[in-house]
């Protein structure tokens, strides 16, 4: 956090993340610091787009793209961005990548782009992005920032895909649009509607907490 134009030595910022390997940085976002089921960040898109696997997957991958791009640039310019304008700069970087993701998706998968509609531009407002830029990418080197962005993005994608698979399977009897439940299955339309999203998220959080608690007890018992 220096004001000189020339980069100086690695800044010593309070709360600098503890050293870790790049692989550990990736894995942390997927597992014990998973954005959705552990940190509970980015709940708005989580609830809104997980009615179909294709939508959840697309939102997850788009967010991953933005997280990696933003992590790279925030880390790259971390010694040039003055403290006073850092949030503005981070938002600018994030917004640029969101716009790119939006355009690329619209050009390649127009149907999914249309289904995600207003939620694509709203990735800018996903607190996960600014949170990781401020708490992590601005304090570490490029490889770690990119690894963290990728890991967090993958963790987000994994959670969204799990949630949307549960909702699409029960709510429509299909997965990625292919019927899997057989003709006699009566879809629980409730699951693809907003209340079904809260219900499915509750189930997911419950099972994650249950598994986590069991593991902790096992460790203590040993």
């Amino acid at each position, binding site marked *: 956090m220096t004001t000189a134009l020339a980069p100086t030595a690695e800044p010593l910022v309070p709360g600098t993340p503890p050293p870790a390997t790049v692989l550990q940085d990736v894995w942390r976002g997927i597992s014990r610091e998973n954005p959705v089921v552990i940190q509970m960040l980015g709940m708005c898109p989580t609830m809104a787009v997980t009615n179909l696997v294709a939508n959840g997957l697309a939102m997850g991958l788009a967010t991953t793209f933005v997280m990696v791009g933003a992590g790279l640039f925030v880390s790259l310019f971390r010694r040039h961005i*003055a403290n006073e304008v850092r949030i503005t700069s981070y938002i600018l970087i994030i917004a640029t990548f969101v716009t790119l993701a939006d*355009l690329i998706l619209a050009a390649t998968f127009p149907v999914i782009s249309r289904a995600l509609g207003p939620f694509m531009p709203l990735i800018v407002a996903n607190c996960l992005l600014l949170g990781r830029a401020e708490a992590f990418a601005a304090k570490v080197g490029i490889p770690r920032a990119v690894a963290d962005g990728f890991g967090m993005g993958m963790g987000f994608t994994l959670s969204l895909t799990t949630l949307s698979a549960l909702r699409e399977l029960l709510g429509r009897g299909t997965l990625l649009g292919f019927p899997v439940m057989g003709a006699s299955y009566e879809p629980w339309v409730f699951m693809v509607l*907003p209340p079904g999203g809260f219900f499915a998220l509750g189930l997911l959080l419950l099972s994650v907490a249950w598994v986590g608690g069991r593991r902790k007890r096992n460790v203590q018992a040993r």
Partner: protein
Amino acid sequence: MTGGHVHPQSVPSAEGRQVPAARLLATLAIAGAASGLLVVLVYRLTLPAIQRYAGQQVEVAVREVLRAPARWDTLYLVQDRLVALAPEGTDKGELPKAYLGRDAAGRRTAVAVTAREPGFQEELTLMIGFEPVSGALTGIKVLEQKETPGLGDKIETDSAFGNQFPGRIVPLRRVKLRTGSDPSEVQTITGATISSRAVIRIVNNALARWRPLLTAFDRTAGR
């Protein structure tokens, strides 16, 4: 903040060293310019694919609001006049267009136009099918909207709303609940009042704009 102890959360204050404003401005200006450049570059690269898809969507919408016409002709609006052929050197994609639906015998059934006006949060684009002489609608379809998911987007997702329009006669009036059989009444959606009102306003404005143009075209073309 070179040297000297500074709190991590410190905001520029009256005391202590401050970053020169010029430097802050320069940082943001450079970042903004770089960001703009990148966005423009990707925009230009993705534009052809996006436009191709938009063209297909328009075709589907024309077919729908004109109630499956046998074929249709495209008219272009050039200098406040409708012409069948776009003049040389103009970009057809940029000109406002009217689609003249025809039945199997070649008679005109209805006309479709697109209209774009502000909705609740972003501009709404509608395809509107109507009979220009009587002012009766044949159908509407939302081409593009970014209204609130779950509320305002019902103008597109709630088919009961869109299905009201065929047969309605302009100028449309909005009502909370349709009572009689007044052909100008359109029922707004609960929770999407502003978006429904926007749709009704767009339809009324579009017909007010296009009907005289089509009448003038009919006179010169002798139908």
